């Protein structure tokens, strides 16, 4: 292989000395294809098969490993281009600036604070998130980065969220961390107070009520 400083090292063999498979996937059984039933409509001659497919996925964080390990330790690691100084979270392992020509970025520890760039109040989501509704998903610019990252904004009534509001990073209990983005969320910065109710906030509150009611009915 050509020797070029911009290239990332690919280890020949990886030995995971610190294994946590029992905590995280010990209970996940891989079944593969399973035929779990069928429907038949004689009148229209329509036949439907219920097929279930279970798959355990891996994410090898590889060059991003420092970020994942940082989550476990309650540290936020981003990257910075040594040439142009652009800072990224989510980390980019090469600079995005065409003039920097794929310069390899350096890891930097970020301050666990930022401000809300934009946000929304979710009243519907994917299957695995339905019970958390309604929640605020905010795009936050962390510690002067050139990018914004989306994560949940908690510790606030959904209608109280604001553009530009200062937020802090709050970590999940160490035993609940998984090395993923859900190991932390945002909360309003200390001392921040929501502005008084106004027609827009009332409207959002009104839209949220049926969602609260609906979530209560979910098993």
């Amino acid at each position, binding site marked *: 292989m050509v020797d070029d400083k911009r290239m990332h090292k690919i280890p020949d063999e990886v030995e995971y000395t610190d294994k946590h498979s029992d905590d995280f996937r010990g209970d996940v059984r891989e079944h593969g294809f399973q035929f779990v039933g069928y429907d038949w409509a004689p009148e229209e001659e329509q036949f439907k098969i219920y097929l279930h497919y279970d798959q355990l996925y891996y994410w090898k964080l590889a060059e991003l490993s420092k970020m994942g390990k940082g989550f476990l330790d309650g540290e936020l690691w981003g990257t910075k281009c040594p040439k142009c100084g652009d800072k990224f979270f989510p980390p980019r392992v090469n600079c995005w600036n065409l003039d920097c020509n794929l310069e390899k970025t350096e890891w930097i520890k970020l301050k666990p604070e930022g401000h809300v760039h934009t946000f929304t109040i*979710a009243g519907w*989501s994917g299957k695995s998130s339905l019970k958390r509704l309604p929640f605020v998903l905010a795009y936050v610019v962390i510690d002067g980065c050139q990018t914004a*990252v989306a994560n949940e904004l908690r510790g606030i009534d959904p209608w109280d969220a604001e553009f530009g509001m200062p937020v802090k990073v709050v970590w999940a209990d160490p035993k609940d961390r998984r090395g993923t983005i859900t190991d932390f969320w945002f909360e309003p910065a200390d001392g921040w107070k929501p502005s008084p109710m106004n027609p827009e906030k009332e409207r959002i509150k009104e839209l949220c009520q049926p969602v609260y009611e609906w979530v209560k009915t979910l098993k």
Partner: protein
Amino acid sequence: MSRKVCIAGGATTPFGYPMHLTPEAMIANCIVETQQDIPDFHLRDLDLMIYSHFSVHFGKQLCPEWVVHDHLGLVGVPHFRVENGGNTGGSALYAAFLAVKSGLFDVVGVAGWETMDNVTQSQGSEFIALASDTRYEALAGGIYPIYYAAMAYKFMKEHNLTEEDFALAAIKNRNYAADNPKSQWYRGEYKKYNRDLTIDDVMQSRLISYPLKRYDCCLMSRGGSFALVTSEEWAKKHADGKYVLIDGAGLSSCTIRAGDRLSFPGWTERYGKGYPDMTEFAACRHSGEVAYDMAGIEYKKAVKEVDVAEIHDAFSSSETQIYKALHWCDKDNIREFVRERRTFMDGDVPVNPGGGLMGFGHPVGATGIMSAIEVYYQLTDMIPKKHRSSKTYVRDAQTGLVNSHAGTGTSISNFILRRP
């Protein structure tokens, strides 16, 4: 290059959720309908097939295009599949355009479908969110309506728009869909209302992600479509009076994570600092400009030159954002542009008379092709035959625009179609 590329036929299945039709039958139906319009077209004419299909998750079948291809009897004809998120259809069309433009092929079939009714809507939303950078947003509960809502909320604030302004696109497209017998809205929920939808109906529909409500969002669908992309010579000989020219084609890209476009160097270089932020679709502006340039349309005059458009209205907000990205209005007059209903049938640029994604439906791989076929029908005066009435027929349209859109604006294509 002087060689001209044409759309010389095409058809769409009804869109539905649920619907009972296999992908191979969907495409077969579309080809049969195309042959009814273009009797001279035979399967033997096809010298390349491009398949447009987004997610193998929905069908539990890798390379499903192989199933369709030999079912059609086309063994030996070269084929490949294009997958590019919501812009899969537009990108497949773009590939066909390149294939004919290059001179390598004369008759290219573009066939697309999606079978999203194989899963529930919440599961489907999560499947689609697998097209976002799953290591970040998706795990935090993000699905596409949520990403779009965050962008729309900021756009709404910065352009002084209201929820009601977005709702205009939502009622427009659904009410036009009621004139289209193949649309999912007409064949489904319309039966419950049996009347035009109102702004109030949108405002009262359930919260999806503020400012978007249920009726601000497109439909999850099963459906298929087919387009015949040919050289001008073939079109003249076999589809005289029933073909249109692809006079402009543009394809562009933007970041996968919407949060990464606040100061992306590539955009700063092209359009200045702070563009597009999280409020506009830069890939739409750029691909639109490329298509306008190719078709000889001045950006400022685009709104006058384009007579009819089918735009990727995954959300009422995104349709509104696209008006600006396509240079039809700017920050200063977008409010008036929207409120004067200039994109309605009696406005100067009717948008989505076919119903769009909110009315016709959105089986991802079929959608962009469906949009192109609707514009093709407009420009060949086939609408009165294809729709329920002439209510959604734009008479004497000379120039049409087709827009296809993926991710959070991550890939966007635009085409300019013209009467020969």
